[in-house]
């Protein structure tokens, strides 16, 4: 792809990536000044495509076109990446960030997932080209569409915790967080309504390295527990790579304005904090509803099988995540000891934990 072609894609946003026998194709759409304020990327795209012009006048390029865009000067450099274990407040975090007009927040964008799956479809793709395509995709997704947008945040799908080494290699300087919570509460939420990654065959079990014969013998609850364990273990292994911080659901939402701004290298104004605090009063996935603290209800709802699986499969990975998080907190406390003063004591103030996810 030459420079003229890259320029030709100015104003276009990749909205899907499909693997075809003739090669992977990127689907591009003119989104104008659309802001990604809905809980998920796909919802914003669905709304945008209701207009016949955006639906009819799209274009496609080979996936290789992304490689020429990896140094796109028009894009915002990523400020922070959000990884998560599912049903643990990641949508709350991304929605509170998206509540600030200076933030461009991409939440579980399918093109990113489709590109991270590339090796399933093209085993000849080199790591260098994968890295170039990932950088290109994230850069082109991160083009500002509003004058106010200055900070790019990306919330990945939960199973992308397995891709942390690749993503970290593509963007070694970008700070990332991993959100998780009490496994029983996640399992109850998944038992009520399973995410795609918890149904073998929708998100391919291949991603998790499971033996297909073993998967066939598992109940859906056991599969859920093993997926959660697989992601937890993978992230724990990467947590000391640098630039990473583990965040327990119990720290939300206050951790966003109390310390994650500094972690991501941005300063929130009083107005920013007030906006986030107001946003935290609503249900993240359905902002027309108020949030409800449902932790106790989920604990009560958990049956014997969920307790057994949480104990046998997830107790150890969860404890490991917690030990890393607490060690990180100790390190942060030590590093900031000199800065501790009455004016910076907000992190020591009590806050109310709020449950957002269903």
């Amino acid at each position, binding site marked *: 792809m030459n420079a003229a072609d890259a320029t*030709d894609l100015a104003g276009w946003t990749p909205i*899907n990536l499909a693997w075809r026998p003739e090669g992977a194709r990127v689907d591009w759409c003119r989104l104008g000044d659309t802001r990604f304020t809905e809980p998920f990327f796909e919802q914003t795209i669905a709304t945008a495509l209701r207009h016949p012009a955006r639906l009819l*006048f*799209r274009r496609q*390029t*080979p996936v290789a076109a992304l490689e020429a865009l990896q140094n796109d000067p028009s894009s915002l450099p990523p400020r922070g990446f959000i990884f998560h274990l599912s049903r643990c407040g990641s949508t709350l975090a991304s929605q509170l960030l998206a509540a600030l007009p200076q933030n461009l927040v991409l939440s579980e964008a399918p093109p990113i997932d*489709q590109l991270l799956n590339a090796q399933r479809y093209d085993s000849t793709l080199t790591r260098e080209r994968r890295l170039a395509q990932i950088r290109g995709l994230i850069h082109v997704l991160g083009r500002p569409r509003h004058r106010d947008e200055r900070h790019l945040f990306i919330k990945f799908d939960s199973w992308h915790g397995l891709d942390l080494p690749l993503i970290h290699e593509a963007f070694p300087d970008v700070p990332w967080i991993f959100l998780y919570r009490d496994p029983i509460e996640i399992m109850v939420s998944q038992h009520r309504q399973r995410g795609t990654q918890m149904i073998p065959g929708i998100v391919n079990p291949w991603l998790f390295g499971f033996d297909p014969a073993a998967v066939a013998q598992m109940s859906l609850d056991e599969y859920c527990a093993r997926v959660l364990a697989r992601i937890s273990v993978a992230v724990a292994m990467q947590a000391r790579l640098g630039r990473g911080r583990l965040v327990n659901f119990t720290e939300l939402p206050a951790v966003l304005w109390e310390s994650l701004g500094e972690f991501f290298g941005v300063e929130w104004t009083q107005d920013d904090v007030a906006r986030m605090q107001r946003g935290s009063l609503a249900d993240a996935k359905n902002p027309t509803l108020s949030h409800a603290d449902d932790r106790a209800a989920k604990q009560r709802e958990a049956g014997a099988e969920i307790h057994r699986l949480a104990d046998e499969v997830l107790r150890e990975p969860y404890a490991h995540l917690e030990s890393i998080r607490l060690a990180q907190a100790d390190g942060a406390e030590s590093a900031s000891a000199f800065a501790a003063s009455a004016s910076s004591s907000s992190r020591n103030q009590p806050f109310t934990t709020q449950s957002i996810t269903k």
Partner: protein
Amino acid sequence: MPLSPRPIALTSGLADDFAAFQQLVVNDPELFARLENTPTTEAFVDLAVELGAARGFAFEADDVRASLQAARCAWIERNVA
């Protein structure tokens, strides 16, 4: 395989003229903006026919509606191999 962008193939079986019009709009931000500025689907269809005719294309409103329906289906089935 050429790497230059090309219009998405949405209109197989429809008039070549509409496909050519799509190509034109995809490469013309101002023309796209005029079409994007229409408040309703019917206004969009009418303007597309008008702008197409002014540029020598012979498609009709039903061609545009059929193309829209095909595009909706293609989007829904976008990841079906």
